[in-house]
C-alpha cells in the first residue's frame, strides 16, 4: 500500500470549554479526493486549519510529499483578507467606491505577476483560468476594487495555477455563479488527473466527479459517509413565530421606493453600470441576478447611499432625489441591508447582541445606548434565531452560518420598509439556506419590499415575483415572474 500523504493522529482542539476535535484520526492517501461536509459548526474549518498549520492543536500530523513537485500544500480559506502595499489591513466598508489617487494595493495583474515570480510559475499557464473566470477586464484593477466574488475567484485561480500536491479549499463554491461553479468542477477534475490530491470543505451536492471519499465530523471525530447525500442534516428547527414587532407592516415613505433614470457609473474608461432604468415600488419582491462583476453590488450601493457617484446621477430614493440635501443616514433609516462585504468589514470587536442592536442605528458596531424597549427587541430576535446562547460571543468567532443569521437579525431589527439581501446565503448549507429563505418569506408576508441577490435558482425565497438581470453593467432583463421561480 502507498504511504499516506497526510497522517493525523489523535488531533484535539478546544475553543475555551468547547471541544471541537477529539482524538480525531485521519489518513489521506495520494490520489484520494475528499469532501468534508455536514452541518455548519461541526469543526470542518478548524480541521483544515490544523492541517494547514494555521491553528494550534494537540496531537501529531505528519506529511509525506513527492520530491518532484516543490509545491506541497495550499490551503484556501473561506474568507480571504488582502493587505495593502504596506502589509496592513486598514481597509473599510465601501472604501472601493471612494476614489483616491493613492495606490494602496497592487493591481490584479501585478499581484499575479508577483505570485508567478515567488512560486516559479509561467504566466501563460494561468491564462485559461483567467479567461474562464472572466478576469481579462480586471488586470489593471486594484485588488480592493474587486467584489467578494471576484476575490474568491482570484484565490481559486492561484490554487489551480499552483497545482500543489495537496489542495485544501474551504467552501470553494461560495459566491460563485453557476457558470464559474461548473468550470471549477472541470478544473478540479483536471487537477486531480495531474496528481493533485483534493480536500474540499463543502456542503454542496454538485461536486467534481473525482471525489470518492465523503466524511463529516461528528463529536469531534471524522466519520466516513457513502455520498454527499448521506451527510447529517442540522437538527430540525422548532418553528417559532416572528417577534410581534416584525409582524407589523412598516410605514412606507413613498409608493416608489427606488427610481433610477439612465444611471451610469464609470471608473475612468471602465463603465460599471450603463444607462440603468429601474423602479422598485412598495411591496414588490425583486430578484437581482447577474454574473460576478456584472455590477450588482455597485447598483445596490447606490440604493444604500454608499456610492459617491450617486450624486451625479438621477436617482430618487424614498421620495427624495439624491443630492437634494438629504444625509445618507436618513436614507439608510428606510432600509436594512446584508452583504458579503458588510460582513467582511464588520466590527471585529462586536459581540453578537451588539451586532444585532447596531441595526437600529445602521452603524457597523454599536456606539449608542439602547434603552429598555430596544434591548427587549434584541432579546426576542436572539431567541427567534436561536442565538441567545451566543449573544455575548464575538461575532467573528461563530460558525459562518450563525454569523449570517446574526447579520440578518441586525438587518431586520428595525422593521425596515426595504430589505436588501445581497447573497445572504453565501457560505450557508442547504438546510440553513432553506431556513433563511423561509424567514425571508415570512417577513415579506408583512408588507416588506425586497431586493434579493442570489446565484442559484433553486435556493431563493418563494415570494419573489420580479426579476432584474444585469450583464456587463447593463439591464438585459426586467420582468415579472408569474410562476414560482422554483
Amino acid at each position, binding site marked *: 500500500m502507498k504511504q499516506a500523504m497526510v497522517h493525523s493522529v489523535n488531533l484535539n482542539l478546544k475553543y475555551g470549554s468547547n471541544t471541537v476535535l477529539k482524538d480525531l484520526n485521519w489518513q489521506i492517501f495520494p490520489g484520494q479526493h475528499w469532501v468534508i461536509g455536514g452541518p455548519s459548526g461541526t469543526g470542518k474549518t478548524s480541521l483544515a486549519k490544523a492541517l494547514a498549520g494555521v491553528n494550534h492543536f494537540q496531537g501529531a500530523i505528519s506529511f509525506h510529499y513527492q520530491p518532484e513537485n516543490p509545491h506541497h500544500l495550499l490551503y484556501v480559506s473561506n474568507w480571504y483578507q488582502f493587505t495593502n502595499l504596506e502589509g496592513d489591513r486598514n481597509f473599510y466598508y465601501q472604501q472601493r467606491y471612494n476614489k483616491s489617487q493613492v495606490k494602496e494595493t497592487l493591481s490584479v495583474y501585478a499581484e499575479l505577476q508577483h505570485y508567478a515570480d515567488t512560486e516559479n510559475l509561467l504566466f501563460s499557464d494561468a491564462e485559461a483560468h483567467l479567461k474562464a473566470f472572466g478576469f481579462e477586464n480586471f488586470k489593471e484593477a486594484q485588488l480592493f476594487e474587486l467584489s467578494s466574488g471576484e476575490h474568491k475567484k482570484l484565490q481559486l485561480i492561484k490554487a489551480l495555477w499552483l497545482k500543489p500536491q495537496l489542495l485544501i479549499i474551504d467552501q470553494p463554491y461560495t459566491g460563485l455563479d453557476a457558470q464559474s461553479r461548473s468550470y471549477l468542477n472541470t478544473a478540479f477534475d483536471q487537477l486531480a488527473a495531474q496528481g493533485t490530491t483534493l480536500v474540499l470543505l463543502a456542503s454542496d451536492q454538485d461536486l467534481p466527479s473525482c471525489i470518492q471519499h465523503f466524511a463529516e465530523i461528528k463529536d469531534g471525530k471524522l466519520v466516513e459517509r457513502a455520498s454527499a447525500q448521506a451527510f447529517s442534516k442540522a437538527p430540525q428547527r422548532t418553528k417559532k413565530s416572528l417577534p410581534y414587532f416584525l409582524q407589523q407592516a412598516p410605514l412606507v415613505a413613498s409608493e416608489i421606493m427606488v427610481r433610477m433614470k439612465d444611471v451610469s457609473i464609470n471608473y475612468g474608461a471602465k463603465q460599471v453600470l450603463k444607462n440603468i432604468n429601474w423602479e422598485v415600488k412598495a411591496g414588490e419582491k425583486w430578484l437581482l441576478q447577474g454574473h460576478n462583476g456584472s455590477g450588482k453590488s455597485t447598483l445596490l450601493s447606490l440604493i444604500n447611499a454608499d456610492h459617491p457617484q450617486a*450624486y451625479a446621477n438621477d436617482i430618487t430614493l424614498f421620495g427624495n432625489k439624491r443630492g437634494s440635501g*438629504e444625509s*445618507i443616514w436618513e436614507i439608510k433609516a428606510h432600509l436594512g441591508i446584508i452583504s458579503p462585504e458588510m460582513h467582511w468589514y464588520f466590527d471585529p*470587536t462586536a459581540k453578537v447582541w451588539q451586532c444585532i442592536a447596531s441595526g437600529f442605528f445602521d*452603524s457597523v458596531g454599536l*456606539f449608542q445606548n439602547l434603552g429598555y424597549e430596544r434591548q427587549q427587541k434584541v432579546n426576542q430576535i436572539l431567541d427567534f434565531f436561536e442565538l441567545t446562547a451566543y449573544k455575548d460571543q464575538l461575532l467573528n468567532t461563530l460558525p459562518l452560518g450563525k454569523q449570517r443569521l446574526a447579520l440578518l437579525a441586525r438587518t431586520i431589527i428595525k422593521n425596515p420598509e426595504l430589505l436588501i439581501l445581497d447573497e445572504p446565503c453565501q457560505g450557508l448549507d442547504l438546510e440553513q439556506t432553506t431556513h433563511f429563505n423561509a424567514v425571508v418569506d415570512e417577513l415579506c408576508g408583512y408588507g416588506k419590499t425586497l431586493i434579493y441577490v442570489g446565484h442559484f435558482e433553486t435556493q431563493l425565497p418563494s415570494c419573489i415575483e420580479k426579476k432584474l438581470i444585469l450583464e456587463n453593467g447593463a439591464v438585459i432583463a426586467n420582468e415579472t415572474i408569474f410562476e414560482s421561480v422554483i
Partner: protein
Amino acid sequence: MANYFNTLPLREKLNQLGVAEFMDITQFGDGVNALKGKKIVIVGCGAQGLNQGLNLRDSGLDVSYALRKEAIEQKRDSWKNATDNNFTVGTYEELIPAADLVINLTPDKQHTSVINAVMPLMKQDATLSYSHGFNIVEEGMQIRKDITVIMVAPKCPGSEVRAEYVRGFGVPTLIAVHPENDPQGKGLAEAKAYCVGTGGHRAGVLKSSFVAEVKSDLMGEQTILCGLLQTGSILSFDKMVEKGIDAGYASKLVQYGVEVITEALKQGGVTAMMDRLSNVAKIKAFNVAEELKQIMRPLFQKHQDDIMSGEFSATMMADWANDDKNLLTWRAATGETAFEKTAAGDVKIGEQEYFDNALFMVAYIKAGVELAFETMVEAGIKPESAYYESLHETPLIANTIARKKLFEMNRVISDTAEYGCYLFDHACKPLLADFMTTVETDIIGKNYNDGKDGAVDNQELIAVNEAIRTHQVEQVGAVLRKAMTAMKAIKTA
C-alpha cells in the same frame, strides 16, 4: 506679520490657553442645520480634504473644491480625487466668491500664500475654517474683520475620518473660534455643524482655542508623539545590536512593539500599558521611567518654553526661508540609521512578548507621555488639551512606524512636526547617553521575567500602582476615553 500670541497681554494669553471644554453628543442636537443650504468650498483635496468633503456631502451639505489653476490644468491628484468622486471643482476665482464657508485643508506651510489668494475673493461675512492654528497664532495672519474664523480639527488621519463615518461613528475632534474674528457670534454654531457633518460629534469633541491648539499641538508632536518615539526606537535597536541580539529580531521588536505597546495605552491609558507587565517587571519599569523623567524633564521644559515664546516657530520659519536646509539634512540622516536600514526579521513575536522583552520601551513611553502632559499643564494648558496632544495621539503615530518605520512616520506627519521631531531627537540622544550605558538586555531584547521567581513586596507594589493610577493624565483620560470607547482598534500586522 507678528506672532499673534506674543501681542497678547498676559491675562489674555492665559485666558486663551485655558479654553478646554469637553462636549458630548447631547450638545449637538442642532445637527448640521447651521450649514444647511450654505455653499461650502474646500481648498485642497488631499487625504483630509477629500475625506472630510465626502463626509460633509453625505451629511446633506453642499460641497465643492477650489484648487489652484495649475492643479486643474495639469490634472493633478487633488483634481482627480475631487472629480472622480463627482464633486464640482473650480479655481479660486470661480468658487470662492460664492462660498459661505471656506475650509482651508492645504498643508501648513502653504497657508500664508493660500489665505492671501483666497481672502480678497471671499464675500462679506463669510466664514473661514482651519484645521491647525499655526498660521493665525505663530505667523500672525490677520483675517478681514467681517470674516468669521473657526477651527475644526479631526484628531486622526483622513482615511480614518472617512472609515469611522461610514460605519456610523466618527473620530475625536477639536473645535475653536478665533476671538478676534467672530463678528456675528455665529462661529461656534458653524464649527459644531461642521463637526457633525464629519461625524466627529459622536466620538467626543473638545472646544479649544487657536492658541491652546497650537501651543499644545507643537509640544505634543515634537516631544512625545514623534521625537520620543524616534529616539526610543533608535536607542533600543542600537542597544540590542550592541549586546548581541539578532538584528532582524531587534528591528521587528521595535517596529511593531511601539504599536502593540501603545495599543494598550490607547485602550486603557498608562495603567493598562503597565498592567501588561508582570508585577516584578512593572516595578522595574516604573523605576526606569522615574529615572528617565528626571533626566529628560529639562529638555521637555526647554521645548515648551521655546514654543511659548515663539522661538521655535521663528527658527523653523527661518529654515523654510532657507529652502528647508536643516529639515532635508535631518530627514536624509534618519534614512541612514541602522534601525531604518535593518528589515524586520522573519521571526514570530507573540503579543505578550512585545511587552515582556521590551520593558525599556514601556518605561520610556510612560516617561514621555507623563512628561509631555505634565509640562503642558504646568505651562497653563488645560489637562483635556494636554491629553489629546500627548497620550491620545501616541498610538496613531506608532501605527505609522509599524507600517514603514521612522521614514514613514516623518513622511506622514506635517513638516512642522517633522522639524520639531529632529530637534528633540538630536538633543535627547546625547542627554541619555550616560543612562544608556547602564542598560542591559534584561530590559530590552530579552524577557525581564526570566530567572526571577516573580515575588514582590506588597507595599512596594501598592505604592507603584497607586502612583500610576492617580496621575492626572489617567484621571482625565478615563473621562475622555469613555466618549470614544468605540474607536476602532488599530490592526496589527
